[in-house]
Every structure is written in C-alpha cells, then in structure tokens.
C-alpha cells in the first residue's frame, strides 16, 4: 500500500491547537511531524516591553488554564534572586499551597484528557468534577478560578481567608478517598490497561538523552524532581517521596501523575499544619539590578526554566523560557514511529503537552 500523508489537526477532536503531519501506511503511522505555532503569542518579546510587575499576568498566560502558579514561581524566583530579596516565611508557605493545589488540578486534567484519548468519557467527567473542588479552594485563596496572579514580587497578594484551612483539609480527605474510584474506573480497568500498557515505551537512557522532564521522565524510572534536587521556597521542609514508574509506557506516565496527586495532598497537609504567622509580602523596588540569572522550578508538567538578563531598568532586557511541554514535545515524534494510528492520541495525551506552553 502506498504511503498517505495525513494532516491531523488543528481541527481535530484530540490534537488541541497542534497539527501533526503523519505518514500513514494502512493503519500504521510511519512518521509523525509536529507542526507547532498555532497559539504563538510572542510572550518572550512582549515581556521585554513591560515592567517586571506588569509581566506577572503575562507570564501566567503561558500556561493559564492548568498550572499558572507553577509557571510564575520560576519567574519570581529569578527576580528575587537578582534583587537578593528574602520572601517572608508565610508567603513561601502560601506559594507552596497554591502551587500544589494547582498541580493537583493540572494532573486531574491530564487524567481527563487521557481517558478521552482512549474513548472513556466517564472518566472525563469524574475528575473534571473533582477538579472543580480544587478550583473552588483556589478561588477562596486567590479570588480567581484559573488565572490568579497570586504570587507577586516579594510575597503573595492575599492571605488565607477565614476557614480556608478546615475547608482545604476536608476537600483533600475527599479527594484522597475519591482517588480509589479513579483507580477502579481507569487504572485497574482491564480494557484501559491493554490500551495503555506497552504503548509508547520511553527507556530511561532515551528519556535522559532527549531531555525529557517532569512526570514523563519519572515514569521512565529516573528519580528527578527539582523540588528535591534543588529545593526552592520551603520544599526542603516537607516529607514527601518522588513516585517513579517501571516501564516508561503511557500507563506509567498516568500512574505517576496519580501518585503525584497523593504526594501533593501529603505536602498540602503538612504545609497547612506548619504554616507560620507573619507578614505575607515584602516591599520590592520596581528596578531590578543589572545581572543575569537562570532558575528552574518544578511545574506540574515538569521543570520550568527561566533565563533573565536584567540591564538595571524597570524592564527585562531578555527573558527566555524553557517550558516543560516544549521539552517533552521532542519525545512525540520519537515515540510515534511505526505505531498503529490508534496509539497516536494515547501517546500524545500521555505526554501531557499543552500547545500554549509549547508555543508561548
């Protein structure tokens, strides 16, 4: 049979704002070529035209609907390192709480998309329902559901409201119980297992060679987490483990995300218990001293790197991001060689790529 060029996306039920150019032979995909850029907004260049403080809502929109706190923390870390600013303790804890809540929401969203990719729509609705509880919590904390602009230079914008602690603990307990249902419905579902197991196997050596980050790297069995390796904020004070997978297939990538949700619940409980009293914000000057800095944080999708060159004015001279989805994108053409067409959505969604994050 001759080879057919198949254009998958950007108008396709599963690809999102991507386009894949596939070489299809019958039902076999020989080659996948991602075509990115449909959501390019020029955020890196825009950031040079705005002050450091004005950049906050902009940077957040790199990855707005899933993981805005995790995205912003790296930028703030970089600026605070240039300024030599020490953030108050309570603000650090609040940042961790917001980031971990956001990580849970993001991983639940990833599970939804994964079950859609295999055609199980029930598990689209269940985690989306429970993600709403987390978003409500974040609304209680920050005033917004999706784009919070919660952490700011020198601290956070709002303190915890009355009754937040109790409400948060209650909802975390519920979520922990609810995870059992997810395992029964999705991960222990035999039909799901034969769809997801041994699909898109990424060996640890390949994962390291390709520069894969985040849960995808950990699913391949490599213990790498910026929260443990180079603790930022107050992550060194919490007791949590790094879940890793065995085979590095699509199933492991989802399972690692579920286990990370459990670890995030663990961190949140400790943070809510230990949070000290004190100020939540320190005054920061609008001008950042001259210098350059690279910081990295563990966002929900993996390591988020920021390289900032400051020229001593109110605006950055250059801001370069290294978002996790862009770094994981390279695994997609690598894994989608000689696979059945039906496995392409599963591999693509299991990497948890976000077009906005890739294009910036």
């Amino acid at each position, binding site marked *: 049979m001759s080879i*057919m060029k*198949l254009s998958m996306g950007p108008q*396709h*039920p*599963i690809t999102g704002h991507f386009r894949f150019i596939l070489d*299809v032979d*019958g*039902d076999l995909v020989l080659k996948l070529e991602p075509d990115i850029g449909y959501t390019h907004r020029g955020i890196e260049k825009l950031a040079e035209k705005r002050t450091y403080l004005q950049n906050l809502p902009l940077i957040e929109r790199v990855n707005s609907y899933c993981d805005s706190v995790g995205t912003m923390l790296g930028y703030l870390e970089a600026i605070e390192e240039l300024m030599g600013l020490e953030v108050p303790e309570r603000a650090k804890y609040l940042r961790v709480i917001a980031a971990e809540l956001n990580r849970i929401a993001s991983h639940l969203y990833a599970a939804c998309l994964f*079950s*859609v*990719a*295999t*055609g*199980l*729509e*029930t598990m*689209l*609705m*269940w985690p989306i*329902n429970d993600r709403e509880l987390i978003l409500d919590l974040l609304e209680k904390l920050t005033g917004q559901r999706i784009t919070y602009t919660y952490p700011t230079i020198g601290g956070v914008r709002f303190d915890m409201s009355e009754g937040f602690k109790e409400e948060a603990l209650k909802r975390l307990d519920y979520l922990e119980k609810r995870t059992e249902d997810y395992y029964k*419905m999705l991960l222990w*579902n035999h*039909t*799901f297992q*034969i*769809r997801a197991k041994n699909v898109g196997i990424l060996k640890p050596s390949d994962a390291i060679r390709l520069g894969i980050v985040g849960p995808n790297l950990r699913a391949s069995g490599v213990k790498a987490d910026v929260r443990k390796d180079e603790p930022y904020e107050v992550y060194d004070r919490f007791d949590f483990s790094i879940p890793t997978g065995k085979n590095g297939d699509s199933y492991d990538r989802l399972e690692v995300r579920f286990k990370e949700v459990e670890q995030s619940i663990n961190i949140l409980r400790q943070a809510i218990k230990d949070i000290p009293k004190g100020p939540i914000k320190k005054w920061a000057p609008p001008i950042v001293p001259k210098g350059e800095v690279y910081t990295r944080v563990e966002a929900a999708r993996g390591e988020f790197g920021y390289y900032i060159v400051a020229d001593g004015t109110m605006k950055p001279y250059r801001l370069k991001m290294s978002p996790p989805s862009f770094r994981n994108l390279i695994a997609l053409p690598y894994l989608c060689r000689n696979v*059945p*067409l*039906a*496995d*392409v*959505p599963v591999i693509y969604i299991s990497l948890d790529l976000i077009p906005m994050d890739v294009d910036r």
Partner: protein
Amino acid sequence: MIPILSFSEIIELILKVLIFPGLAFPLLFAMIVIWFERKFLARIMLRIGPLHVGPLNRTGLFQPIADFLKLIQKEIIVPDNAYKILYNAAPIIASIVASMSVAFIPYAPKPDGGYWMIYYTPWSLLVILAIFTARPFIMVGAGWASNSKYCTLGAIRAALQLLAYEVPIALSLVSIVIMSRTFDLAKIVEAQSSIWFIILQPIGFIVILIAMMAELSRRPFDIPLAEQEVVFGWPTEYTGTQFALVMVSEYFDLCAVTSLITVLFLGGWSGPAIPILNDVSPILSGVFWFLLKMAILTVIIIMGRGIYPRLRIDQLLDAGWTLLIPLAIIQIIITLFTAQWWIPLLGGV
C-alpha cells in the same frame, strides 16, 4: 397470481407495515433509545443530560426530535471530490437496509394461528443474516465515495472489523439451529417454550452479544467511528439530513439486533400472560414481554459506552479470532453432545 385479501387482512397488513413492527416502531425505538442513552450516560458521568425540550418537566424527552428537526433544516454539503451517486445514496440505503430486517422477526403469536410479523418465511434466520452482512458494504462504500482521508481510514477499519464479528455470529447461530432444527425464527421461539436457549447455551449468548456489539459499532468496539483517531470515521463528511439518516440507521440496527437476540436466546414473546393486556388481545401480552427483553438487552449494550475505553483494531481482531471463534466452536461441540437429551424436552418442534 396476487392473493385476494379480505378487509380485516388489509387492516392487519397496514397495522403491521406502518405501526408495529413496521415504520413507526423502529423510529419510536430510535427516539426513545437516543433519549435514554443520553440520560443514562449522563447519570453515569455525573451530568444531567437533556433537560428542557418535551412534555414532562425537566426530562428532555423530546430532545431527539428537536435534534432531528435541526438536522433536516441544515444544508446538505457534498464534497467536490466525492463520487456523488454512491455518496448520496448510501445514507438512504443504510436506513432502508437497517429497518428491513424487522420485517422478518416474529413479535407475537396470533390467537388464530400464524405470527405477528410482516413477512413470513421458513428461512427468516438466513434472510436476517444476509441483511446484516450488507451493512459493512454500505459503510465501506460511503467511506470510499466520500473521497476523504479520514472517511477512507474509517471504511478500512469497518471492513477489518467485519472479519472479527461475522464468523463468531454465524458459528453461534449454528448451535441454535442444531438445537431447534429449523431456520424459522418463529419455530425457534416455540422450541424455547419450556426452557430458553440462554440457559442451554450461555457461551453462545455471550459470544453473540459481544459480536453483535462489534457489528453495531458500540463503545468498546466503535473503532470505525473512533472520534479521537479518525474524527468520525466513514460518515465524517455527511451533514444535515444525511447525517440524521446515518445516525437513525444505527439505532434501527440496534432495534433489529436486540430483537434477533431476544428471539434466539431469550424466548421471544414467551412469558406469563399479563391479565390487563390479555383481555384486549393476547398479542399485546406477547409483545410486552418481547419489548421488555429487548429493553434489557439495549441497556446492556448501551452501558458499554459508560464503562469501557475503545479497543484497538488489532486487539479486536485478536479477540475475535482467538477468543470468540473458539468459544463458539466449543458451544457447537457441547450442543452436539447434549442435543440428544435436550431436543426431546424442547416444545414445538
């Protein structure tokens, strides 16, 4: 020579062809099942489902009708590259063929002998099997005629899927025929008057249920329509009325398949007579039991969409050839060995 019918016979024929089990019944079945499927799946998924259209408050009972009215108002778009005759004919043929098999299924016995069915033939099982076999060819034809890549992929998948379910269906029908010693569906039902074939042939029932789900492209096996992979499979390019016809034809097929399994395994109309219905006509009582069994089968078939992910085409072929066919053959062997004890106990043969 055309037989001359009496007035009451003409009335009966019109009732059969236009109302039950003819034109109105599959349409009503499709409407109720589409509504039920949406409500039922919504409950599984913690959603609400259709809500506002319809007579009863907050049930959305008429939502399928509203959707259908919306679809027939839409423009029919025919792709430039399409092979127009086949492309335009396929949805009409699909819905006709799908509703045709209902004509050969006996729904109830009449008190004065004979059966409540549109056309009686002693080979009705073979006729229905032949009608079912026509469906994949319509799918392949429509997919090819659309001349679109996703349609072609969907059509190839439909053709491959045919290999997985056609043989198990035929093989599990063999053991039914051995047991009842006839191809006549009405006689098959009468053979079950003392004991249903689901009890004598549980393996055959499971095989035929799974294979029929594959034939209907229901959830674990909706590979030709896989939304996430081939957009909508072979009917991707259809719009408006043509799309409505394609959709309705699937539910006509569901109607025919559940009727057939009811006849083959669940004893058709057999069941204790309902006094209220029996007073009006004994036919109604039989029809009631028939519809009840059909409804149970429909719920089972629909439930797959709520709890299973979709299989891959190679996994389905694998399951078809290494699991369903051996099981069907085992059922034939068991039937051959036990038939000598069972056949004398069955009634009506």
